[in-house]
């Protein structure tokens, strides 16, 4: 599949737009690193994000920046056990009692966590 055929490219464009806005707010000329947190139930493939990021960041302050992605675990809260537990993407039932009406408490995140910016005053734009 070509990168242009996946939604990861749209999401990378959003990511670059958001990171560029943060850089502008801080008067930074370049973005060095972008840290993202994705859950297995976010619908996003980390590998496809890595492929799409260079395309989405071309000719932007994020060009050449490192994209780092952390994955969060799938977690569910069981109203019957009143406890949280780890679950898998295609089995969100309570691993303790088997109750199916659990509530997802983690694993669908799709977050821009932080941006590393080049400080304009110390180093001029390369």
């Amino acid at each position, binding site marked *: 599949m*070509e990168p*242009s*055929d*996946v*939604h990861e490219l*749209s*999401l990378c464009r*959003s*990511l670059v*737009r*958001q*990171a560029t806005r*943060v850089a502008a707010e*801080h008067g930074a000329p370049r973005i*060095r*690193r972008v*840290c*993202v*947190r994705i859950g297995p*139930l*976010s*619908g*996003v493939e980390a590998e496809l994000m890595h492929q799409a990021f260079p395309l989405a960041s071309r000719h932007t302050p994020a060009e050449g920046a490192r994209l780092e992605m*952390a994955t*969060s675990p799938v977690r*569910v809260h069981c*109203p019957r056990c009143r406890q949280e537990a780890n679950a898998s*993407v*295609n*089995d*969100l*039932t309570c691993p303790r009692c088997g109750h*199916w*009406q*659990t*509530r*997802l408490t*983690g694993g669908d*995140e*799709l*977050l*821009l*966590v*932080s*941006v*590393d*910016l*080049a*400080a304009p005053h*110390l*180093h001029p734009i390369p």
Partner: protein
Amino acid sequence: MCQTCGCAIPDHLQHASNEHDVHTVEVLEGLKAHNDEAARHNREHFDRAGLLVVNLMSSPGAGKTRLLEATIEALGGRYRLAVIEGDLETENDARRIRAKGVPAVQITTGSACHLDATMVHRAAHALPLDALDILFIENVGNLVCPASFDLGQHVNVTLLSTPEGDDKPLKYPVMFRASDLVLITKTDLLPVLDDFDVDAVADHMRRLASAAPVMALSSKSGPLDAWIEWLEAGLTERRRLRFHPASSPGGHALLSRPSRLDHAASPDT
């Protein structure tokens, strides 16, 4: 550790502090913020007009357009309908809808694999929303990408055609978890398929902690009664919300999609 998502921000800060020319800015913002904002805007349009907006998703060829054709016939002119068609290249689906006397706006997505809220916004402005009861959005045939983009719809309906196999919810949990209704289509083929179990689909949905109903039908031979009743109940609900708006500051919550928490709070079934 970050209190919001548990990520290891202090490590990043530590790392950054070793480099003199770099500083880390914490953002903690959803990557879909832009689309979500556009979707919220669409939903405001739809709610003001008092119509029900249904997002249809499925694999290519699961029968979304055929279902719409059959639905238009079954509703028999009782409601004012319109369709927004998402298609990679062609106008074929929109033509089929217009042939049934229902207005259709085609969004040709080119190489894009999904509709987003901005595309739907443009298309919606080409329709007389105030003069509609139900607007169907036929998303691009794909069980992966469309699940990640809120369009401003009120309900998501995912079609699963019998030749695809009954285990699709477990293979595409993101899509099926986002579904408010699963419609098994092409049930007229069940006699020649020995490996599709309608009940298994409902079991798989429960494994995804989803209370979404599962219905089975054939757009070709029917019956469509349960589906039509579900649509009419959805429309009644939209109108009830429209004529009895919440006056509390939290009233905007009514404009958002039904939350899965509501289902989870219901007693065992």
